[in-house]
């Protein structure tokens, strides 16, 4: 038979296992609301007699040797983790985009506020009033005020968009990357080291693993990360996990390492005012990282996560992006800035041209053209308000081209592509038609709108009414019939030019990337109002769409979080029943010990006293 006290030790082991299991239950209950806590379970193993049998041993009935609590494990599903983190990246991205677009919408939306469209309508109605009283200084003043409010509103829009961009840039560089992201990767690297040490000491660092998982979850909200676990053989027969976190590009299968066991790569943000790029300070390089990678600009590797959302918002140029040149074509802040700039420029250009006088006087035209540079002449020919006479006479063409340099000649030939009304070439590339005379031109000296900062181009940020107009409200040209061909008297009370200005409101305009250059891409054709409506509509659709994405993504995320909770969460009912089970086990083991005690007592005190 077995030794006398073997069973006592079995009972002790049973009680101690039950205590350990009860402790785990307690730990689970205590942490039921702890963020990132994973339900633990004490692993109980039955013990058998093993080892060296005495050669003199008799064959015994094997009773087993009780139980032992060998370890405490976490109940966790790594596949769910991966899915959760992928979805978390999407949520992070849509969250950032949605918030940013809502900021833009708050500036540009006009449903519950009076904005640009309202102001434009006001401008039109003031022009209608001016057409009733074209010589009234007071009404001209009201028109000017309305125009001024419109240009100021554009200025405000531009400033507010710039503020949104600044805010986004700050959030990205100082908060998301500067604080959250970099500290997270460094903490994960630190934890990796601690966890390995604990393992080496033979401990079970479940709580540290929970901490690491929480940090990785946080990281997944910011970027498209991939977690890989491989095995390191630290000593003969002892392998321990080696955690690598990388950003993975699905298209090129290239990975950029973020954490490699105890090493972390941190990010930094470069902002040149237009484009925001992200670079990396590297302390290691993964084997599958392409060798030609430019660590100073890894911007394009961010495809999901809040960082990619910020980047799209700040770098996205929408239609205006040079996609071939690698520019971001998301409709972000720059897209709306550009659309406002186009509007401002088109508006200013249209009304400046209408306000300018035109001349058909040959001497006047000759005088003005004599002081023009070649480039200015080209621009004059291209101006739709200029009337150009062309010649197809070979001798005249020869005379005209004779005075041009070869670069100038090429520039003239270049016109044949987009301006066949001006220049035509034959199959051998020689000029067969070209401009000869200008018979009508606009004298662009009466600008209603000018850039306030002295730059050459009008933008939404710098559009303002001209000093001339500020000084004289009637600087606005109300009639162009001032000088008439048949020597009629000056009739200054005409309103024909005001009607022209009103007509420009209801007529369609071609909005090119650069509104003054018809050669650039055509982005929109329609009236000023339609342009604003289309811009507001695009923005609203984008907000709606990204809001829906966010909602969908959030729903999936919640369901994944519930799935994780179903596996790893603490259920009080379950813990209570475990508690009951282990308490009973403890009680039973104690009762068993009592039985053993009685048996031994019998053996010691009640044995060999026959007849006493």
């Amino acid at each position: 038979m077995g030794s006398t006290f073997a069973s006592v030790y079995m009972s002790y082991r049973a009680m101690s296992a039950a205590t350990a299991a009860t402790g785990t239950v307690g730990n689970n209950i205590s942490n039921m609301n702890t963020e990132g806590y994973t339900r633990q379970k004490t692993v109980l193993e039955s013990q058998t007699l093993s080892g060296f049998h005495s050669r003199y041993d008799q064959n015994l009935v094997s009773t087993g040797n009780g139980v032992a609590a060998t370890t405490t494990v976490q109940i966790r599903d790594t596949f769910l983790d991966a899915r959760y983190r992928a979805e978390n990246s999407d949520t992070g991205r849509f969250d950032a985009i949605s918030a940013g677009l809502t900021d833009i919408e708050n500036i540009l939306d006009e449903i519950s506020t009076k904005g640009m469209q309202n102001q434009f309508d006001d401008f039109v109605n003031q022009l209608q009033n001016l057409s009733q009283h074209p010589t009234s200084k007071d009404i001209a003043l009201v028109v000017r005020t309305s125009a001024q409010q419109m240009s100021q509103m554009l200025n405000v829009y531009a400033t507010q968009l710039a503020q949104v961009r600044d805010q986004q840039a700050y959030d990205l560089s100082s908060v998301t990357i500067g604080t959250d992201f970099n500290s997270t990767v460094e903490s994960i690297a630190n934890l990796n080291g601690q966890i390995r040490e604990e393992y080496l000491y033979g401990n079970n660092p479940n709580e540290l693993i929970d901490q690491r998982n929480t940090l990785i979850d946080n990281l997944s909200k910011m970027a498209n990360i991939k977690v890989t676990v491989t095995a390191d053989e630290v000593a003969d027969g002892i392998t321990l996990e080696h955690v690598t976190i990388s950003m993975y590009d699905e298209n090129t299968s290239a990975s950029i390492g973020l954490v490699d066991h105890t090493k972390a790569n941190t990010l930094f943000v470069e902002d040149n005012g237009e484009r925001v790029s992200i670079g990396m300070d590297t302390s290691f390089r993964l084997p599958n990282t392409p060798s030609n990678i430019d660590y100073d600009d890894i911007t394009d590797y961010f495809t999901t996560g809040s960082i990619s959302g910020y980047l799209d918002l700040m770098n996205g140029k929408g239609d205006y992006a040079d996609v071939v040149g690698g520019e971001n074509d998301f409709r972000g802040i720059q897209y709306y800035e550009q659309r406002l700039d186009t509007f401002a420029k088109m508006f200013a250009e249209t009304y400046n041209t209408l306000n300018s006088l035109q001349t058909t006087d040959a001497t006047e035209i000759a005088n003005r053209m004599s002081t023009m540079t070649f480039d200015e002449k080209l621009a004059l020919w291209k101006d739709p308000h200029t009337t150009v006479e062309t010649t197809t006479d070979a001798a005249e063409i020869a005379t005209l081209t004779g005075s041009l340099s070869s670069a100038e000649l090429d520039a003239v030939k270049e016109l044949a592509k987009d301006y066949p009304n001006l220049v035509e070439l034959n199959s051998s590339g020689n000029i067969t038609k070209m401009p000869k005379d200008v018979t009508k031109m606009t004298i662009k000296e009466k600008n209603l709108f000018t850039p306030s900062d002295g730059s050459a181009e009008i933008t939404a940020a710098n559009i303002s009414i001209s000093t001339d107009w500020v000084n004289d409200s009637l600087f606005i040209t109300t009639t162009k019939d001032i000088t008439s061909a048949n020597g009629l008297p000056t009739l200054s009370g005409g309103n024909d030019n005001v009607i022209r200005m009103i007509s420009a409101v209801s007529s369609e305009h071609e909005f090119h990337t650069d509104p003054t250059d018809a050669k650039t891409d055509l982005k929109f054709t329609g009236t000023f109002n339609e342009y604003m409506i289309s811009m507001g509509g695009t923005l609203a659709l984008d907000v709606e769409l990204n809001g829906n994405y966010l909602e969908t993504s959030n729903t999936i995320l919640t369901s994944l979080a519930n799935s994780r909770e179903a596996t790893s969460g603490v259920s009080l009912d379950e813990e209570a029943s475990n508690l009951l089970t282990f308490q009973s086990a403890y009680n039973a083991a104690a009762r068993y010990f009592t039985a053993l005690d009685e048996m031994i007592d019998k053996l010691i005190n009640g044995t060999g006293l026959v007849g006493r």
Partner: protein
Amino acid sequence: MRVTSKMMQRTYLKNVNSLTSGTQNSLNQLSSGMKLFKASENTAAAVKAYQVRTSLNRNEGYSSNLSHADAVLTSSESVLLGVEDRLKEAKAKITQALNTTNSENERATIASELASIQDQIFQAMNSNDSGFYVFGGSNTNSKPFGTDANGQLTYNGETLSTLANDPLDPTVHALSHDALYLDVGLAPELDADENVISSTVFEYSITGIDVMGYGRTVVTPGSASVTAGSVTVSGDYTGLDDAVYTYKTVANDGVATDGWYKGTDTEPTDLSELGLIVTGTPASGDTIDATAGDVVSSNLYDVLGELVKELTKSDDAGSASYSVDRAEKLLAVFDTAVATVTTQLTNIGAKTSYIEYSENRISTLDINLNQKQADIEDVNYAEAFTTFSSLYTSYQAALNIGSKIIGPSLFDYMR
């Protein structure tokens, strides 16, 4: 599946949050009366709302233009009605004066009355309505009518009697078409020369030249006699002076030109412009001796002036004495001129009824647009309140069960 209390709590919170935001949105709608707060809530509706708002704003401008045009036309009409009354009075006076029994003195009295009517008409046509002269075309800043050195009526600086009788004459055309235009919702368009196409705008002014008339009328034709040659001259000589035209060659700037020259003129005269038709082949040295006819200015003011002059003539001053015959002829010219005023009054009537039609059209459009705007932007209270009630009921129910979710577990039943 294991269901933990945390899962129940999370789902509960998510649902309660969505109920709260729904309730809040519904409350916002009810308290503000607005259906939309951001375009992104319903992009299609928002785009429509923007379009409707713009149309409403535009209509405001059109209405304002129409009432301005109406005011100007009403003021023009009342001035012209006054002028017409004065003209009726003038006509009666003239008829009275033509009665042969009138003495020189009686005629002079009537003449002075006519002169005062002439002056009143002149003042009326220069009338100013809240800062602008209604009959001046695009000249709204200064009085359109005046008189030149000879006392002839001028319009915007042009002496009306010197203008051709032809409405297509460039100057006449320019003056009578130099009007004021307004955009009343016909979408103004420009032609190739960037001039406003007049059919796309509303012309609301009556030009003074169209009211008063222009050019000259022949009362008695002149005559012309030919000396030598085979030339025949026919037609009325309507030139204002007597003259002798000689056929000769004059070298001017080294270019020799054959033609009829008046006196020492260096430029030939186009006789056809004077109403003389020359047939046959003139020879150098042929002369035409023209005698001026009696030609008067056709416009109302000048004709009245001419009548005043005629009536004040004495009975026995030889060739310069009063002629009933001439006065009667002048009356005929006067009648023609009066007819133009009546025509313009009809013209104003036509324009006013167009304005009425347009105002009706715009107000109907406004009603429709307002209805449309209400449909898009305003809350349907019945619907919104029903939504709110059902949301609020759900919200209360959710709160009610909330306390039960984080309720009992097995622990509550362990002794």
